[in-house]
């Protein structure tokens, strides 16, 4: 297949952690390629290294060895400044525990990435547009009446949908989700997966890690991570 079809590629990834006196290898020469517009599920048991892999793919962490390239650009070669811009514009993260900022309301949480990516002057000129997009996203996810609520006033499903809206705020090419339904009941979790499917149908590339095979079934492709390698 032509390389241009892949939005994200990981080659020979190694990552280990020191736990006390022992060095634990998490990823052992892992190779992975994600196609543009793909909905990929990475399945693995707890401790198999799937979250570590996800964060390396999203440039939140660095591999000990190996290369991660996004649209042909080696992420290890990017400066910190460019990595920040990459995380701001190219990737959206959805976490198991939502990770919303308690001090901000729902709307502010959603447009935070837009605000973070701009200078004060840039934000002043684009504020109205950003707020509109944030409101549109919240409306799309059924949260139009929750814009002024604080995260603690929302249910788990609402918080996760807010987190997804935030992840999509800057229209990233890649959405990375770490156990997005792990903290939700099955009905609410299915609702979140519906959202993912809908996004994917609209061309959004999604990489989701989960330990639950049934949830992974909702993705187009499933890979299993065992002992630091894809089998």
């Amino acid at each position, binding site marked *: 297949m032509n390389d241009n079809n892949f939005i994200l590629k990981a080659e020979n990834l190694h990552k280990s*952690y020191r736990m006390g006196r022992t060095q*634990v290898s*998490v990823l052992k020469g892992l190779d992975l390629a994600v196609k543009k517009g793909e909905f990929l599920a990475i399945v693995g048991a*707890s*401790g*198999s*290294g799937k*979250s*570590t892999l*996800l*964060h390396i793919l*999203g440039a*939140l*962490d660095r591999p000990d060895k190996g290369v991660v390239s996004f649209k042909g650009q080696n992420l290890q070669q990017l400066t*910190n*400044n460019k990595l*920040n*811009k*990459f*995380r*701001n*514009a190219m990737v959206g*993260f959805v*976490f198991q525990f939502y*990770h*919303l*900022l*308690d*001090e*901000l309301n729902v709307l*502010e949480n959603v447009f*935070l*990435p837009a*605000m*973070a*990516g*701009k200078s*004060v002057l840039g*934000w*002043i000129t684009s504020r109205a547009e950003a707020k509109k997009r944030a409101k549109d996203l919240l409306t799309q996810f059924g949260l139009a009446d929750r814009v002024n609520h604080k995260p603690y006033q929302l249910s788990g499903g609402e918080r996760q949908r807010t987190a997804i809206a*935030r992840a999509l705020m800057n229209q990233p090419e890649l959405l990375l989700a*770490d156990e997005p339904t792990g903290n939700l009941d099955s009905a609410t979790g299915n609702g979140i997966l519906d959202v993912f499917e809908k996004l994917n149908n609209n061309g959004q590339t999604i990489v989701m890690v989960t330990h639950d095979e049934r949830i992974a079934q909702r993705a187009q492709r499933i890979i299993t991570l065992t002992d630091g390698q894809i089998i």
Partner: protein
Amino acid sequence: MYKAILAIRYLFKRRISHFSLVAVALCVFVVLVVMTVLSGLTSQFKNNAHLSVGDCIISTKSLVGFAYYEQFLEILDNEKIVEAASPVIKNYAIVKSVTTSSAVPYIERTLKIAGIDPVSHSRVTGFADWLHYNKTDTAKAFEPVYDTNLPGCVMGVGFLFDRDSDGNYLIPEQIPQFEIDVTSFPLTAKGALAKAGTGVVNTKTFAFTDCAQSRISADWQTIYLPFKEAQLLCGMAGAEKRVNAIHIKFKPGVDLPTGCETINALWQNFVTKKAEAAHANLLRKVKVQNWKIYSREMVAVAETQQTMMIFCFAMIGIITVFIVFVVFYMIVCHKTKDIGILKSIGVSNANIKALFLSFAFLVAACGSVIGTLAGWKFLVHINQIEDWLFEHFGFQLFDRTMYAIGDIPNTIDLKVLAGIISVAFLACLAGAFIPSRQAAKLEPVDTLQVNQL
């Protein structure tokens, strides 16, 4: 923009932030109040010390004094920087009541003599303002109203009258009529007792004519006598009349050091010209000093207090830094998740640091405003508060029967305020610096707890 929003939210939504705010506000409040009061007292004290001696003093520590002062006064008369000059006799005397008045206690004590011409001395010092009965006509300061046969004397108010709780001396409306004997030891120009082997001392009776309140130690130690009477009493009215000091006031706008240097040059020139004159050695013992150096024994106490005060406030500043450091450290510990979230959406380390430093800046700004307003409000009412405390609990911050002050000084010096606020900002930024750096260094994977395998 998000930094400002988050910093404001951290400040107002997090209870722990309120502690740092209160700490800063309290420090600003305490320092402002104490600095204002003590600086006010110190500057009042310095001002009183200045007013008591004039700008420049030509003096000798020797009780013998120095001669040819009249010739030097003529030189000073022609000097354009000199506003006025006053020769002064300074000595010690035993003062004893001859007749008494019910308004004043019996007096028998050693006091300092200051022999002055009231008019010229008032032009150099604040003497006219210190008088109680002859404020408007200083020339009559030594004119008894009831017995013209005796010369008058002005006594320091402190050893004559008691004070009320407001610090005001209980001076009778009518001039108390009493006389005192002033006994001094006249000295020759060579420093020997002028009446050795005979009477030894000079004694003269004076009628009380006024009291002087200079608000310095002179109020408890000094009796002012007519210049010529004091000169006779101290044996300084011989062939070459002598004085102990010439007090000088400069014209407005004359720089103190420059003025004193000019006077010193004139004096040294005068001493050189008089090198062959009789008792020229006395002239060489004379020093020309500005009022700060001349009064350094008094001023040094105030300046030591000021230094101590600054030291204490430096301690308070360090404590503020530590409080802010602890609070910020705790905030950073509580906010690691936020830091991870911000980094996951592309916020840089520098901006994370800037966020927490903005927060520190806000704490300093709000703390300073609150502390300043509270301090200002407290200072505006400090005298009323003290009065209320005295009325209800008998408590006085400064016991007016002991301290020569009226109202507690409460005028805020804007320079002092600017200094306090600057230190508050520096303390907050210093206290927040390490936690901010620590926050910036946090790895998102650690803060989001994604290092679980």
